[in-house]
């Protein structure tokens, strides 16, 4: 097994772990943490795939993709956290309310 393949598989496992936690836990902060871990897994896979070039230099396009992804992830996380805090402020809960019955 080569080094890139190892990290790629780690990335896939992280993606799975994050998805499982996203579904299992109901606290909003946990869900946001889970999404961040899953995102890190996808990025790991991307960069590991980039390192499979035949020479010493890695492919820079996945690097640019992951940099973009990190920035998008922090933007989304900030919005999610602000929403979660506001929900807590307005309704006192840190979990999603059930769908309306009507």
């Amino acid at each position, binding site marked *: 097994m080569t080094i890139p393949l190892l990290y790629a598989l780690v990335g896939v496992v992280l993606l799975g772990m994050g998805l499982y936690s996203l579904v299992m836990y109901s606290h909003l902060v946990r869900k946001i943490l889970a*999404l961040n871990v*899953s995102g890190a897994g996808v990025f790991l*896979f991307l960069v590991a*795939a980039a390192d499979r070039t035949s020479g010493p230099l890695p492919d820079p*396009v996945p690097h640019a*993709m992951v940099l973009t992804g990190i920035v998008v992830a922090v933007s989304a996380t900030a*919005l999610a956290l602000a929403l979660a805090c506001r929900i807590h402020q307005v*309704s006192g809960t840190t979990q*999603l309310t059930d769908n309306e019955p*009507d």
Partner: protein
Amino acid sequence: MSLIDFLRPMNLPAWIISLPLLAAVVTVVLPRTSRWVGIFIAIIIPLVVVKLCIEILDQGTLQMQVGGWQAPLGIQLYADGLSTAMLAISAIVLGCSTFYARSYFTGKAALRSFWPLWMFLWAALNALFLSADIFNLYVTLELLGLSAVALVALSQTADALSAAMRYLLVSLTGSLSYLMGVALLYAANGTLSLKMLATTAPASPSLSTAFALMAAGLIMKSALFPMHFWLPPAHANAPAPVSAVLSALVVKASFYILMRLWMMIFEPSINPSAAQLIGILGAFAIIWGSVQALLAKRLKLLVAYSTVAQIGYLFLIFPLSSTPQTAQTAWQGGFYFVFSHACAKAAVFLAAGTVIYVFGHDRIDKLHGIVRRMPVSMFAFALAGVSLIGLPPSGGFIAKWLYLNAALTSGQWWWCIIIILGGLLATAYIFRFFSRAFSYLPEVAEGRPAPKIMEWTALGLALCAIFLGLTAPTVTQLLNAGKPF
């Protein structure tokens, strides 16, 4: 370097994307100009899109390499009949909704929050429809999703905030799934360009897995049954113009990407029974969504469930296009659904918003006789209802007729039953509201008068839905330009 150079056809996509982005920055930096900037964009973007339509009807396609770099190094913007038609529909719906929003949002806080978000939403939609690069599509999807979520949260009620949070979580999960698919495609094929993937990607396990991931993500964002649970609360609790645009355009954007990927890259190599499965999910959506709409107590919730049902129709494209003779008809039918539903649903949401503005609530059992106070809005609702049910001469009728055609020609008569049943159920829930609105019971309590703009933009959109039916030949010609199917 003359003035005409600016408007060279090749640059049209760049203007269509850059103008709303520029407007977004201006509304952030100079909030006091927000409303004027919004109206300016609402007028100019439709004009530029019309020019693009003329160009596409003439030339067929239009391509632009951003930065002058050829694919696979650079990003390509690509306009054919399908993307131009999507741009046109979003220009119409967003244009009318902008005029509506200008009267709807009167507070000062809206200047700093609503208008920049609205401009980002428009920019994201335009960038999405013109993009031909799978990673660029991811960035536009995120731009679209985040602005939609923030717009839903603007109502500031507990329900709206919770709905926005649910929408955000679903949207992010969908984007992540899509991104993993992009990563797999790049790792296996070394390119991000749609065109190159279409021609060079061999069928392989990585291709099927990538498709499954991307489809799952996009289906979550398009609210196909059973991933629809986030849509009714989000669309029902958002401010009215936001609901209109969400139902009309935002859920269709991810569907558009799914269709593009399907048509260009994945279709030859995917199992036909997968297509039938997706069709069954669509049928469930139609039935279940219509039933829930029948049971809804609030008008906006009824309309939101109607969206769930109508999205089910879209996914019938998959099984109906499985044979080569019917493929073209099925795709045209599906996209005709997209266009007519966009106009009709937006009209209905705007009218519902006017109801809330006038009476302060939207509980259906308390809305009897309101046609006397707001005849224009109710007429708009009626016309839009005609299209939603699928009666001639509306766009909805054309769409259903194309679908029935495809179903009968390919021998899949069971879909005909579903489509007709859907139409009957739609009639039921539309008339459920109508019988109250047009009833002769004593009139409801006083409400304040509705601004003319709000009523007439709803009517304008409803008329577009009917117009789509009357101008079917031209629309079909535009849709087929550049042979997208």
